């Protein structure tokens, strides 16, 4: 993958000045490339990776396996897109194997999640069945280990 994208995936806040130094290109070139990625939809957003566990009112993640009937026109895409439109839905993936869509939703309570599944998702035309899993704890998310506290054990100066 492009080196600039890799750097931004590690730290989206990195300044164009620093990126230029690391990559050995000009600041203008960095800005131009980022603008092009944004324009072409390669970069879709810049988000913080939040450790929900540290928050008092954390959001609750529910993972739902969904079996659907593909439509004659549009296949899986149209129904997947409809599900994606709901604001409580965080991610939707088309999967191979025993089910079709893997849907991640975020809610304040288990009830909220349950209501979305039973009153919205399960009764949508084309949805054959759902299997709902509640996420208990995130150990690693987006490549980042969620617990902190592993310090640097090295001596402060060494040959």
């Amino acid at each position, binding site marked *: 993958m492009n080196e600039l994208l890799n*750097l931004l995936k590690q730290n989206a806040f990195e300044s164009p000045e*620093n990126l*230029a*130094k*690391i*990559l*050995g290109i000009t600041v203008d070139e960095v800005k131009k490339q980022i603008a092009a990625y944004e324009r072409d939809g390669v970069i879709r957003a810049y988000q913080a990776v939040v450790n929900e566990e540290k928050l008092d009112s954390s959001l609750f993640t529910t993972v739902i396996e969904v079996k659907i009937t593909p439509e004659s026109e549009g296949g899986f895409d149209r129904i997947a897109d409809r599900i994606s439109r709901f604001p409580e839905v965080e991610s939707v993936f088309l999967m191979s194997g025993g089910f079709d869509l893997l849907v991640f939703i975020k809610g304040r309570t288990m009830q909220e999640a349950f209501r979305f599944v039973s009153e919205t998702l399960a009764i949508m035309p084309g949805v054959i069945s759902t299997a709902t899993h509640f996420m208990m704890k995130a150990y690693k998310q987006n490549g980042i280990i969620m617990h902190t506290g*592993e310090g*640097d054990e*090295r*001596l*402060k*100066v*060494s*040959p």
Partner: protein
Amino acid sequence: MNDSKSLLSKIAKTVRDIPRSGIRDFFEIVSSREDVISLGIGEPDFVTPWHIREAAARALERGATSYTSNLGLLSLRRGISKYVENKTGIGYRPENEVLVTVGVSEGLDLAIRALIEPGDEVLYHEPSYVSYNPLIQFAHGVPVAIQTKKENGFRLTRAELEEHVSPKSKVLLLNYPNNPTGAALSKKDVEEIAAFAIEHDLIVLTDEIYDELTYDREHYSIISVPGMRERTIYLHGFSKAWAMTGFRMGFTCAPPELTEAMMKIHQYTMLCAPILSQEASIEALKHAEKDIVYMKAEYKKRRNYIHASFEEMGIPCIRPDGAFYAFADISKYGMTSQEFALKLLDEQNVACVPGTAFGACGEGFIRCSYATAFDDIKEAMVRIARFIEKL
């Protein structure tokens, strides 16, 4: 007998006369302070890759707690032999040409003790790793330091070698990519040094611990030059490229006669390298290629950043080709390296190692390690810029 003076007089003169490492003194000053950003650390900031740690843990669970063969586990020596051959094209027989040591530090000690008789001269280049000069003296050899120059990018030249060689010269000790300067040699540089060694019938000790961390060119080992395998002890280890410093794993590759001589000393002093570290190293050789690629890519980004930052500040610094050190020229500020480093520590809480820790010709330089978390490097560069503005 109890007073310290009479005890001191009992200590061997060779040991008494050698000062302890300048790094040690500096370490103690830095350790007494809080919240220091340290660019003074000569080891990777990465923890050993997880699968290697797991291999060590599995070996411990299995009950691998015994001695091994003096030379090291045969399966590890086989792995080392294959690894070295892949890199250099030069094969070493695992049975009698590979010796597993406790770090390259031990390997160097063995090599020097196996070769040096009192009065024999060892040519080596400075600025250099802190242990070369003392190890030669411990063996009652004569260290002959060749001062490499910034103008040559700290690369050792044939002309410099010719100036220092004498009938007593027996060994040439090389370390490229270099700690502390970050210099690396081209194929042509290496060939010229090899021709010199052959002409003067020298044994070459080549410490290539940083060879995987060469950024802008392919590393070329002196053992690959025809005629060099038979006169060279190749020293390498797992500390840097695999981030395994604490495992203390090194190895030597050399013709059977030299390996046997080193093995004798190793046998009677160390017996063998720790088995858990050997088990971890077997795993490292099998599966760590992508870890090395990843870590090297990270170091390279930091190298680019730190070099560009020094340039921006107007501090001259050759672009390091290898290892993970930038050797910055601070001579224009009219302070010794030691004064500069102490003042920087005092005013900005940034630790760098004074160049003089690596030999007298390191005066006017500071060594900045970029085996340091990126955020720390960035902050350190901001602070150094702030520091020099006030000078």
